[in-house]
């Protein structure tokens, strides 16, 4: 075994997590599924919170790690938010399970069943909260002098992620050239009773401007035939 062969969570630990976490940990599939690509924090995402030290790491596992420190305006409450952006909801679910292995405690003791607002939730203590939303695994942890109610911030963040932009312009979003690599794309997929999928997508620039996206506009996506 080379030094770098073994970097992620071990099979033994994942087996243990798998035994502890059953299907009941996950909420039924929502009516409208959300998928986010190129997640980025925008200034108006969480009113009352200031973001600092945003860092993005491509981990080489088809997963983007986005880290940011958030401070409540006029308070000593500080949180560290970690977003793991996976390729699809299935990988997100697997990574949510793997995230439970980052605690030294039994995963079964961490879960909230059924979840209250997200697709799956772990509540290891008042200072930290983990949830799954679509292809995103989000961890909020208190890091300031005052212990933060992490769940409140997590819920506000989840609402922000799920929020469908209302004032999207019809102009073409920035999907190529300078700035395109920082444009977040939110896709909402609603399945009809007949089994058809109806999709809406929005491109959100780092400055908060929003544009509706057709499939062919999405960065890195080939147009539909």
């Amino acid at each position, binding site marked *: 075994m080379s*030094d*770098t062969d*073994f*970097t*992620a*969570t*071990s099979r*033994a*630990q994942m*087996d*243990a997590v798998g*035994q*502890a976490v059953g299907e009941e940990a996950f909420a039924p599939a929502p009516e409208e599924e959300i998928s986010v690509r190129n997640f980025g924090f925008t200034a108006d995402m969480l009113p009352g919170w200031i973001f600092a030290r945003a*860092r993005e*790491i491509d*981990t080489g*596992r088809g*997963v983007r*790690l986005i*880290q940011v*420190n958030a401070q409540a305006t006029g308070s000593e409450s*500080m949180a*560290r938010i*970690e977003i*793991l952006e996976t390729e699809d909801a299935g990988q997100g679910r697997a*990574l949510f399970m*793997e*995230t439970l*292995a*980052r*605690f*030294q*405690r*039994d995963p079964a*003791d*961490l879960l909230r069943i059924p979840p209250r607002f997200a697709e799956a939730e772990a509540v*290891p*203590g*008042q*200072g*930290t909260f983990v949830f799954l939303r679509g292809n995103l695994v989000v*961890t909020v*942890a*208190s*890091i*300031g002098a005052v*212990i933060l109610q992490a769940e409140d911030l997590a819920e506000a963040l989840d609402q922000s992620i799920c929020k469908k932009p209302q004032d999207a312009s019809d102009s073409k979003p920035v999907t190529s050239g300078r700035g395109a690599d920082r444009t977040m794309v939110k896709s909402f997929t609603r399945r009809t009773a007949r089994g058809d999928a109806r999709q809406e997508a929005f491109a959100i620039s780092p400055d908060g401007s929003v544009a509706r996206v057709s499939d062919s506009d999405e960065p890195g996506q080939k147009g539909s035939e």
Partner: protein
Amino acid sequence: MSASLKQLLFNHDATDKRGSALNLRIDYDEAIVGPEWSRTSVRLPIELPIAYAARHIDPGALGIFANFSWNGLPPQRLEIQAVPAQPRLSDADPRTALLRSLADSWAPINPTLSRYYASLAELAADAPPILGRIPPTPVTIGADGESGAVFLKLNGGRLRASAVGIHEIAWRWQYRTATSPRWQDFDTSFHRIFTTLDLPATPWLQEPAEVWNSALPWSGALELACSWASGARLKRDVAAMICAGVHAMGYGQIEYGCPVGAREMYTNTPMGIFDLTAFLERARGGLGNGPYVNCTDCACAVSTFANLLGADLWQGRMGQYVPAFMLRDSQTIGHSSWGSPCNLGLGFMFHEVGWSGDCEQDDAIYDASVVVDSNLSPFAHLPVPLLPAGIPFGSIWQTFYRRMLAAPESLLICHPLPEERRRRALI
């Protein structure tokens, strides 16, 4: 007519470090490019950090490359030397300050011991400079007034025998010519030099020496590691002193993360990374990723800093995940009370530590996250605290780490997981 110093290159061989300084970078984001000391006409000299792996040095091969320029007609015969001068910071190596403070502390209680520490402090302060002097070397100046790169040999004997440390040195540069045979000063250069015991072990790398290679040793990490392990001459001492250094951060900077469910805050195991950037920021008094850590964070810190100085530790695990193993009373980092972690009585699904060798029971443990009770007597209940820094894991029969950490009923569950040893990449 005069000489001037243009640049000094300590790291002149990217692959062979027997005669050259190590390949370094500043931190994850910033690489070091070019010579460690250089001067242009418009600004102050640029001084970059330098590091040597002491035990890897071949004293006969040690040297630096220097470039000089000459103002005026090139002399027929020019010799250049550098003699040690007074460094700008005399207390760079914290040993001297520590010994002086010990001397002061003991003065009213035990004057003899105080004098002993004072004499050690004097010895440490008056030690000859780590790179000594550069002997007289002939230098040829071209028609353009430039010398080109000149190899200047250094006496590496003292460097090879040195301990881990931080050294501030200064060189007074002098020249003489056939027509002016008296040595004349023409420049002074200042340098900050880190000495490690050996070449860094993974996750640190020495190759490729490219700008993008973030696994080259970071000078910011060397600063902290060398101050913690200053004076260490053996790898096991390096590991133990680093372990003590990380644990000492528990007095105000970090603590076991009960409010966050004992989650890893500086490590991301699924992604296989350790956020050394944030950990260094925390160690320097900044926010970093906050005060909370768990055993994995501490194991990463211990092994990463120790391996930077040439030790060979792993991030090794024990336990079997299900069921958790119960613990004897202990003190978690940043907490002074004895009991179970966070007083939950839940035990550990796993525990992770700095671990030597193959992470088996005969290999040594360096656990900065938990102080164990070394009093295993069934008759006396007064805990005797021990920071496990160099004791073997041990079998269930031996009075080593395993029996000090795990409750008697959990000794069989608390077993090494050598197949899970790892060294996480750094960000």
